[in-house]
């Protein structure tokens, strides 16, 4: 187990290095670049040339990359030019990460809390009305573009009905303490209940929109997996043993049916990050997704680099954790 973890972490380092190289090369191939971003529409040839020299962008690519690496090991990933100009990119990432995590965790929680029970019930009552209804819902969840759903939700619940806030993470100008950057958590820790509540309200709509895709996947995997497990020989064995319905359901069906679901939940991190790019845009949440889309619009190399790399690492790490969790619940993997 330990060796496995170490090996996976070793892989992570390699992936990060390779990715950083790819990213570096790719970002430099993008049109525009930091010079345009910094100088804006009022640039002259002269100021452009000066800036290029000052930033060392006239050096060969490998020199630039080497310098970048050298700085990166000290935690210096350059300074944002467009997203939060003047702030170190790493800081931008760290400031924005909690927002995205908060959002994704809530979305995933919704997806899991709704998807798994629904998938289980639908699988057991295959062909029933609940089954058909939830299948339809999950199919729609896939077919509706996330950002459109986000728009709809916002329009209906925030603007027309005025039930929930339309955007942001917390009411503008709220005087709340932000210790961890997770606003809901901050509110709870500092006992500023209204701040926590306010932050949670802000999260509801975006999380609901974001949860549709993981919900659809989790629901369908659960359902399919319950269907599969119900046909397994060991369930038949359990029934042949005359076990009670509850024992069969929990010990024999659910425990096995959850295995593929656990992996899926890890993979959903990717979908969540993709979706966050869109949702954060619609709901103006200053998270990683927004940093990415702004970074692209404003050619913010440093931020893009940190954010994409960190995103990939988070993705890899989450999946490592999921795999470890998987090994804990699946004894077949434990001995490896």
């Amino acid at each position, binding site marked *: 187990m330990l060796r496995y973890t170490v090996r996976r972490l070793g892989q992570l380092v390699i992936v990060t290095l390779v990715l950083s190289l790819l990213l570096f090369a790719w970002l430099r191939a993008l049109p525009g670049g930091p010079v345009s971003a910094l100088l804006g529409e009022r640039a002259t040839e002269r100021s452009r040339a000066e800036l290029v020299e000052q930033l060392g962008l006239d050096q060969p690519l490998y020199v630039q990359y080497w310098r970048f690496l050298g700085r990166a090991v000290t935690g210096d990933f350059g300074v944002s030019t467009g997203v939060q100009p003047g702030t170190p990119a790493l800081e931008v990432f760290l400031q924005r990460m909690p927002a995205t995590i908060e959002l994704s965790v809530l979305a995933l929680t919704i997806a899991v809390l709704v998807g798994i029970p629904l998938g289980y019930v639908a699988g057991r009552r295959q062909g029933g009305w609940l089954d058909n209804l939830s299948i339809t819902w999950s199919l729609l969840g896939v077919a509706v573009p996330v950002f459109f759903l986000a728009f709809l939700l916002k329009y209906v619940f925030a603007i027309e009905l005025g039930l929930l806030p339309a955007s942001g993470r917390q009411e503008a100008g709220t005087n709340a303490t932000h210790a961890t950057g997770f606003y809901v958590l901050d509110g709870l820790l500092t006992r500023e209940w209204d701040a926590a509540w306010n932050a949670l309200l802000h999260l509801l709509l975006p999380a609901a929109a974001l949860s549709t895709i993981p919900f659809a996947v989790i629901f369908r995997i659960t359902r399919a997996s319950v269907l599969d497990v119900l046909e397994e*020989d060991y369930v038949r064995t359990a029934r042949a*043993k*005359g076990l009670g319905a509850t024992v069969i359901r929990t010990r024999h069906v659910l*425990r096995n049916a959850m295995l593929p679901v656990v992996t899926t939940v890890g993979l959903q991190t990717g979908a969540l990050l993709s979706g966050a790019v869109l949702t954060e845009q619609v709901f103006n949440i200053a998270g990683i997704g927004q940093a990415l889309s702004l970074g692209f619009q404003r050619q913010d190399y440093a931020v893009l680099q940190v954010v994409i790399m960190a995103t990939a690492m988070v993705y890899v790490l989450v999946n490592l954790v999921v795999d470890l969790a998987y090994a804990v*619940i*699946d004894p077949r993997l434990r001995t490896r």
Partner: protein
Amino acid sequence: MALLEVRDLAVRFVRRGEPTVAAVDGVSFDVPAGRTVGLVGESGCGKSVTSLAVMGLLPRDGTEVSGSVVLDGTELLGLSRREWDRRRGSDMSMVFQDPLTSLNPVVPLGIQVSEVMERHRGMSRRAATREAESLLDRVGIPDPRRRLREYSHQLSGGMRQRALIAMALACRPRLLIADEPTTALDVTIQAQILSLLRELVAETGTALVLITHDLGVVAGMCDEVNVLYAGRIVECADRHALFAAPRHPYTAGLLESVPRLDTPRGRRLAPISGSVENNIPWSVGCAFSPRCASALPVCSERSPVVEKVGPERLLRCHNPLDTDVGNTESSHD
């Protein structure tokens, strides 16, 4: 009265949009306490469906079960789900063909064994675990204490099958159904398991229904043999009588088809012609008639009924073989 009496058991699979499959079609047999009864037949003849019907394990949707299954005086068909659950695992239990897939991969063996006792014998987890240990020991699993904590993937095929047998025997059932318990195993392991079963049956006096396609296994294990073909029993007899003088052409054909260790080698085999695809429905005539060497015109026109021929023998055939035909055939050379 026999412990288990199966009368006119019929199972039909009815699916919307698909033709109805009559998998088992009027099967009757008795299993007295302490005896071993074999059900033999080729793939698809309805052996498993019969056993699942007896155990009440067929899916509820899309299956129609009729006839009667009486265990120790109680009619089982039509019992409520609860009562089924109370009987399964305690009065009657079952061992399945594939020991790998029949064990839950994520639940430790100990729990899978002890849960039966917790359920039916009302034992505490601790007592049940202690009992499970001795059970595993009795079915010949070395180091049972350690094995209790292990998972099915850590066991070999033979060990798994032993564990399944232990579970089946945990509540000292009076009826044990073993559906091809050794088909997935190698010969040497098969020998181990069969001898284990033999011992256990002798010790506990459990009635055993042994389902297999291997005539050799039946010959060594059973007191009475039922030969199934296309969902019906075509011949039923004491094993000595059956192997010595098969009366149904199908039984005889099976015996002639298999190469045997005890007959001279190099002899040309005398196979049954065609395959099950050539069958005709039992409702029309004898399902076996298209493949039968001794078929008469009547065979494809009228369905034969079961008749008692001689002592202890039931036969479903219009034109059974003579008593000595089988003998001459097999003692030829």
